[in-house]
């Protein structure tokens, strides 16, 4: 064998023809050609464009470093992760799920939003392919009796119950308990559902404060001066904002402008306050706000590895709850594959049902699923913005810094 490559006119012609065929093949087919290796094929379906693009991309970053983290953690597993964009639409999510399965995906992961997730779940159920839900809070997802769905994310009532329970822990740890609170909520699907959930669960949780006023505002509001003025007038000691990113900014800006300094701002299970863009925009005024949400446990070795890999690959982006849960979905898929030693759907699903992962990244107990496919061991964390970084302050086992409560005033020297 000489190692020389012979170029003949006929050979070159054949190569050109093969190349042209590959290039000219319809893109979905080409996609299928690219799916040949022996690793577990995981289709990651996320809204990486459209209204939820920012969050979808944050989720995706968690999956993008999964294989590196597995290697660092000496896990003998690598996944072939193929990304599919749901465009923030349930109909596209459904079509993409069909495409992923046609392209040979062994497991599907997704899809951040409940509507899109349910659209995908119907496909996976009909085609007998496991679906690992990374993020989606509608309780119905695990109440439908699906045989091929597991969810590693709390349901909406779990989110609220966990968040409100943490309030008591925060007050106990700080020795300061507010007596009154005002609930402010954006009136979109999520906000309304949260607000109704809080109203329903609040009386059962024996909370130490009374909600003296509930104020909702439009998701497209450009000015919250009236709402904040109304909230300030109640003289409530605690603000519970159910907000998203942009209204969260408006809310805090207005609080600073109106010099309303309640004892604390504690988000009862909503996004907004911990998000990277919020922290960048709000600067020192973003500090000392608390979000009670599921979060990464900074004390585990796997979280530290994930944070290191994430920071190296995406230096400008913060690792958050979205990336954390999506990474965990990959971890669950990998562990199921290791246990099943097969890419067959039934074997994988059987392994998923028996999952028990003690070492993972989010706060809470081991990852395991109940008969409905729901992980009930996820716990909320109190995440306080400290020095422009969301930092776990409760539970104490996972705390990376001491809690600061009551919140320092807007002009306090601790805000630098």
């Amino acid at each position, binding site marked *: 064998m000489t190692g020389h490559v012979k170029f003949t006119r006929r050979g070159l012609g054949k190569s050109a023809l093969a190349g042209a065929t590959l290039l000219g093949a319809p893109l979905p087919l080409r996609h299928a050609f690219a799916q040949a290796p022996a690793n577990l094929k995981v289709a990651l379906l996320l809204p990486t*464009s459209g209204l939820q693009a920012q969050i979808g991309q944050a989720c995706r970053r968690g999956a993008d470093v999964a294989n590196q983290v597995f290697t660092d953690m000496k896990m003998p597993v690598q996944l072939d992760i193929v990304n599919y964009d749901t465009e923030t639409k349930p*109909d*596209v999510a459904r079509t993409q799920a*069909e*495409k992923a399965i046609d392209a040979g995906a062994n497991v599907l992961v997704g899809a951040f939003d409940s509507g899109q997730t349910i659209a995908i779940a119907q496909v996976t*159920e009909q085609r007998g392919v496991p679906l690992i839900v990374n993020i989606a809070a509608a309780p119905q997802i695990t109440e439908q009796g699906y045989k091929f769905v597991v969810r590693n994310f709390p349901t909406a009532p779990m989110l609220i119950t966990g968040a409100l329970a943490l309030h008591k822990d925060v007050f106990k740890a700080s020795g300061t308990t507010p007596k009154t609170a005002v609930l402010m909520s954006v009136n979109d699907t999520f906000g309304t559902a949260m607000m109704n959930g809080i109203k329903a669960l609040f009386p059962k949780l024996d909370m130490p404060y009374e909600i003296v006023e509930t104020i909702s505002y439009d998701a497209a509001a450009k000015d919250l001066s009236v709402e904040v003025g109304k909230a300030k007038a109640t003289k409530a000691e605690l603000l519970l904002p159910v907000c998203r990113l942009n209204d969260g900014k408006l809310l805090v800006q207005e609080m600073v402008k109106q010099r309303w300094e309640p004892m604390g701002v504690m988000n009862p299970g909503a996004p907004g306050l911990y998000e990277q863009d919020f922290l960048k925009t709000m600067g020192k005024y973003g500090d000392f706000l608390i979000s009670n949400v599921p979060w990464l446990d900074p004390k585990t070795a796997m979280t530290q590895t994930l944070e290191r890999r994430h920071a190296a690959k995406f230096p400008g982006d913060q690792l958050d709850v979205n990336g954390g849960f999506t990474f965990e979905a990959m971890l669950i898929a990998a562990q199921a594959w290791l246990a099943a030693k097969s890419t067959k759907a039934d074997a994988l699903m059987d392994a998923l049902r028996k999952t028990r992962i003690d070492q993972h990244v989010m706060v809470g107990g081991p990852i395991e699923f109940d008969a409905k496919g729901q992980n009930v061991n996820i716990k909320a964390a109190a995440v306080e913005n400290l020095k422009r970084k969301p930092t776990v302050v409760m539970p104490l086992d996972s705390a990376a810094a001491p809690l600061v409560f009551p919140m320092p005033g807007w002009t306090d020297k601790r805000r630098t």
Partner: protein
Amino acid sequence: MTFARRLVGNAAPRTVWLLAALLALLLIAPAILGKYWLSVLILILYFAYVGQAWNILMGFAGQLSLGHALYAGLGGYVAAGLFFHYGIGPWAGVFAAVAAAALAGTIVGYLGFRFSLAGVYFALLTIAFSEFTRLAFDHWEWAGGAGGLFLKVDGGSDIVNLRGGSLLFYYVILALAAFAFILCRALLESRLGRYWLAIREDAEAAQAVGVPVLRCKMIAIVISAALTALAGVWNAFYYNNLFPETAFAMGRSIEITLAPIIGGLGTLFGPVVGAVVLTGLGEAFTDLGEALGMPGIKQIFYGLALLVIVMYRPAGVWPWLAGKLGLGELRK
């Protein structure tokens, strides 16, 4: 003259044969296509159907509605709610769904047409109705409120309750699309259809020669709303979940209008061709975005493609295509 002959009317024989071949192909398509392509075909047929329904109001009668999601959402919610709360199957619930949407269409139409709201003013009225219905459903617990209404999925096949896989929904939406096509053809060939065209071209002149303009417009909006409600019922049972934020969204209304606009307003084949072009382009650009690892690039190319089509084929793709194929259907 038989109904079939009236339907065929003066259409070229080649057109009729092509239609028959297309229908035959669509009937056997599930046996040929994979599940993914079947789901794409379902989307095409859905957009062709709702486009056809919208085209009655805008393409035939010349009344611009940008709030058709109202009727689809109402239809979906009524049928899904009856099934969810009382176990009333969609084949029965569809009558209530259509009635609710027709009533909504009557109210919107009467307010708009009786008080001579036309063009963008009528469009604004339709948007307003769609928006406040969304807000109402956000707070209506019977309909699940903002948290959504979810239908039970059991994985089995049950035609009576419209529960089943893609194949069942494919044939239902195919039947609906074929029905809408035939209905629109029949309407266009009727006196009412001629009245609509007269109103679309010049309402005042039509009124002057004795066309009952208000009544004709009302019939157009009621038929259009009722047909759109059917699509809403299908949509609710296909996806098994409804959220006010998406069911009544402005974006949903715009999606409904795109296929007939791109395909050719006021034509029978326009919504069908538009749906094929739009869904095809959408899938191609999705693949491109995935191949390049650039999510979101689809929207840019999709927008550019629509811009090019609207600039170079302002009457839509179908009139141009029909000319090229020698099928000769122009905008009525």
